[in-house]
């Protein structure tokens, strides 16, 4: 069959015209890069949350251990005999995780409803000014006011 001279194959027709493949590839590349960046952001958030949780656990352990040391010191004594100087640096190093130090110890007002309990507010400080507080409750015997045991510690 004879072919008319004006006929052009489809490839020949598109030659020289702007194609759609390059813009499509650019768009796909942009979408892939954008989604990768979003995933990286999520991974970073997850990592930060994990680090923050780890720090919270460390502080909780420190408060718990400090309560144990305070019990070791205070059981058999009266609340007014509290002296943080007896918790020397060596002992505090045992109790507090690296980067934390003892901030403040302060007795809370006694609750008339439960005179057998005394509450001590404990503050520990982190490196970057971060603070954590906990309340340590001790049982005391009423006739003499001597502390008997640790009742409960909590954040």
């Amino acid at each position: 069959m004879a072919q008319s001279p004006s006929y052009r194959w489809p490839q020949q027709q598109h030659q020289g015209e702007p194609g759609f493949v390059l813009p499509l590839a650019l768009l796909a590349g942009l979408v892939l890069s954008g989604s990768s960046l979003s995933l990286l952001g999520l991974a970073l958030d997850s990592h930060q949350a994990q680090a923050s949780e780890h720090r919270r656990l460390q502080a909780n352990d420190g408060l718990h251990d400090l309560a144990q040391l305070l019990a070791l010191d205070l059981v058999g004594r009266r609340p007014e005999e509290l002296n943080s100087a007896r918790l020397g640096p060596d002992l505090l190093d045992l109790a507090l995780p690296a980067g934390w130090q003892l901030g403040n110890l302060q007795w809370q007002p006694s609750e008339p409803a439960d005179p057998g309990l005394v509450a001590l507010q404990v503050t520990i400080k982190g490196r970057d000014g971060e603070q954590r507080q906990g309340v340590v409750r001790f049982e005391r015997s009423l006739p003499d006011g001597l502390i008997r045991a640790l009742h409960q510690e909590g954040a």
Partner: protein
Amino acid sequence: MNLVEVLLAGLLFSLASAGSLQVMAGMGKSLQGAAQARAAEDQLEAELRRSQALVRAGAAQQQATDLACDQPALLLSRLLTEPGPGEGDAPAPSAAPPAPLVRQVSVLAPGLVRLQLEAGGGRWQRQRLFSAAAYGLCPSVGGALG
């Protein structure tokens, strides 16, 4: 559309795909690591709570029986190293065996011991101090500092 355009598009798409695949692979590893860390932290927390419960129960028993406690730290160590009730029994068939924890109890002072727990070959650690006085165990050890 010519050959150069197609080649350039292919190159661009390959680069973007390769980068994206690497990021996704890294993300997968990161998520897996986070899940492992979470599981290890949960396991350590559960073990610490179990140890606290053991000491509390042991202290109550000791107070009830009024056992001699001339060495309160050793008494605490014994409470922390003894298997708990039900421990050592065959696990339920459906329960996945947890990764082994390394458990170390050291005596720091009369009436004060430290429990150190490690999971994942030392990657995750927790520690707790246990004072005999805190649990009303051997009241004579109170006021031990200063």
